[in-house]
Structures are given as C-alpha cells and as structure tokens.
C-alpha cells in the first residue's frame, strides 16, 4: 500500500495515533506528529512511498510535536523525539518539515553501521552509479535534482549508502533538499516538479523539498554499482569542466565526507578503497544544468560498450 492510497483523514489519524509506518530503501520509519506542516509535507512528498505493514520491522521511531507550555502560543517551536530522547534543540514551528527530513537523515547517519555512509548525492543510469560528494553550497542537490529529471535515477540526495558486503550503493529515494538560489533554478528547469512549501530563516536559509519521481520511489530496492565519483562545484558563468582527479586523494576526501568511516574501521577503509579503484574520479565545475546533464550522459556513453 502506498501513502497516497490513504485518505487525508487516515493519514492524520495515523500520524496522531500509533504512527505512520513509512519505508525508505531498507529502512522502516514510524513517524508521529500533530504538526500540520508535517502532515502536509508527508502527504505531498511521500505520496508514492510504500507504507509499512503491521509485521514490518521499525528501524526508527520518531515524533515531531510542538514544545508544550506557554511558548506554544507565543513563539511555537517543534522538537524531535527519537526513542524517547530529544537529540536536538527545538526549532521554530515553521521549520517543522525540514526538521523532520534532517531528523530522518540523522536517524540513519547516527545509527546505521552495516553500510559505509557517505555525505553525497547518488544518481544512477544503466545500472551505474555516480556518487556526488560535496560540502553544502557546492550545488550537489541542484545538480542531483536536474539529473533525475533528465534520465538519471535518484538513489539519494544526501546519503550515499555503500554496502560493506558487495560494494553496491543502495537507494533511499527521499525528497530532494533545495535551498536559497537553487529553488528558482530547479523550479525553472523542472516546471512540473512538486515542491513543498518554503521554510524561511532556517539555519540553512530558505529551504524546501522536491518530491522524488514516483518511478524512482518504486525502485528503492534496486542498488547500483559505483562507476563514478564526481565532486561538483557550481561556479556562476562557468562552462562545464570535468577534470580527472587522483583516486587516492578522492578516497581521503570521501572519508572526510563520510558519517561513519572512522566508526567502521578497516571494513570502511576497504569499502572505500574498493569504491574508488572501481570508479573514475573527477572534479566537475558547472553553471548550467543542461551542460551538466550532457556531461553526465557523455560519461555514461563512454562507459557502456
């Protein structure tokens, strides 16, 4: 059963009651909330996501609700509760939906250690994955949003999940996070994409989330083989410039961008070394999404016999 098959009343009832069981890749989330922005955001952005059945395992049990007390009426805030604990400071109620997405990321990055978790977007085409690690502000999510509407499949826009067993990259297929100037860029590039409302004044500026294409969500169980590691950087006015970079240096940079590399120890090192030795590594500078898509399509063309 998919989320959009629930009526609005059923969705609200689950969120207010025992929780909404939602699948994202290999993980089961149970989410509880009485906050309208959370209800609206989930209904809009996770419409094509599968719901968990009664017998399905819940990996992460979380809730987002208004902080009680007089503040509830003056400057309402929301807090994230995970397994009965509150890991973060509360945020303004208007930031409830981004807080949910950040909290879901935290649940995975802080607790999942049977995969190497890279801070990166991952897209796939022809069974081959391009891993896009980059710091905030590099244009990683903008590039990811453009690519997934021009033939590439979304695996994740934030967490590259590398299997320690076989080196494949798993899919989470959650909404794509966009902020500040990238909102207008992606709205213009993908006019029919579905966006949540914009939350302004967050720690990351103005942020929203874009719904993942439903056929990508339907393939959340399909991993891909890493083929490229591409460090993107948006530079205003730049033509597309793809520059090969050292695999050894890429290994170190990926390790610095990983959530659990040092936790995993040697298995993480071996997974990362296998990943870079099986991939072509590049720095990529761009300013126009069409140029970027053409560059990525060119890489795919050269990689396929």
């Amino acid at each position, binding site marked *: 059963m998919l989320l959009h098959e629930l009526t609005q009343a059923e969705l609200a009832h689950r969120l207010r009651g025992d929780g909404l069981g939602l699948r994202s890749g290999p993980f089961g989330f149970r989410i509880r909330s009485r906050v309208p922005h959370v209800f609206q955001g989930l209904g809009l952005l996770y419409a094509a996501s599968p719901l968990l059945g009664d017998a399905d395992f819940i990996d992460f049990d979380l809730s987002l609700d208004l902080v009680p007390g007089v503040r509830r009426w003056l400057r309402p805030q929301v807090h994230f509760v995970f397994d009965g604990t509150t890991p973060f400071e509360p945020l303004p109620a208007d930031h409830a939906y981004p807080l949910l997405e950040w909290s879901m990321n935290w649940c995975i990055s802080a607790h999942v250690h049977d995969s190497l978790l890279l801070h990166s977007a991952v897209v796939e085409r022809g069974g081959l994955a391009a891993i896009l690690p980059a710091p905030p502000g590099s244009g990683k999510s903008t590039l990811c949003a453009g690519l997934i509407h021009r033939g590439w499949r979304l695996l994740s826009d934030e967490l590259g999940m590398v299997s320690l067993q076989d080196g494949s990259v798993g899919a989470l297929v959650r909404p794509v996070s966009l902020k500040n100037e990238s909102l207008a860029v992606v709205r213009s590039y993908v006019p029919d994409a579905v966006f949540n409302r914009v939350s302004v004044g967050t720690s990351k500026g103005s942020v929203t989330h874009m719904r993942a294409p439903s056929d990508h969500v339907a393939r959340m169980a399909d991993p891909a083989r890493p083929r490229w590691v591409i460090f993107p950087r948006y530079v205003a006015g730049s033509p597309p410039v793809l520059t090969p970079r050292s695999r*050894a240096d890429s290994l170190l940079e990926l390790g610095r961008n990983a959530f659990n590399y040092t936790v995993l120890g040697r298995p993480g090192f071996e997974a990362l*070394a296998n990943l870079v030795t099986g991939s072509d590594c590049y720095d990529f500078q761009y300013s126009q999404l069409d140029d970027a898509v053409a560059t990525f399509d060119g890489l795919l063309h050269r990689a396929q016999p």
Partner: protein
Amino acid sequence: MAGSSLVQQGAERVWRINPAVGLHWRLVDDQWVVFEHNSGTTHQLDALPAAVLMAFEAGRPLDVRQLLEQVREDLGQQEIMHAHLQTVLQQLVQLELVLQ
C-alpha cells in the same frame, strides 16, 4: 660531505614503527593509502614514505644507514638521498606512525 655527516648522526639514532599503530595498506593507482585502525586516520603516501613505513613494519628498528640500504633495495633507486630520508622520517614521526 654533508651526506656523510647525516649518516653518522643518523647512525646514532634508531627508528622504529610506533607499536600502537595497526596499518592496512592499499595501492591506489601509483599512490599508497594506509589506514591506521587505532586512530581511524587514513594517509596518502608517496613511494618513499610508504617504503620506509613498510620497512619498519616488516621488522626490527633501523638506523638511517640501514634504512637507506633497505629502501634503496626495495624501490630499486640508488639515488635516494639521506636528507630526503630524514625529511620523510620527520613527517612520519609527526604523523605518530614512527618513533625515534
């Protein structure tokens, strides 16, 4: 003559691998990458520092003369200079991979 002086100074000093480290090596293209599992740190090493570290890892403590002979043989490069070796040793000490 400067080289001889360095050899004599170096002969008084013995170097060894830090016994607290555990190293795992991968050759990635022409670069060695080594993971130190107790600290969780990863280092990218050129051929000479990698050969030095491997020489210590393989056996007993060495002075600079012994080390120079070993890495010249391992790398097949007779032109490796004492001064360069001393610099590499200092770098490995700073990384806490080698002790004096």
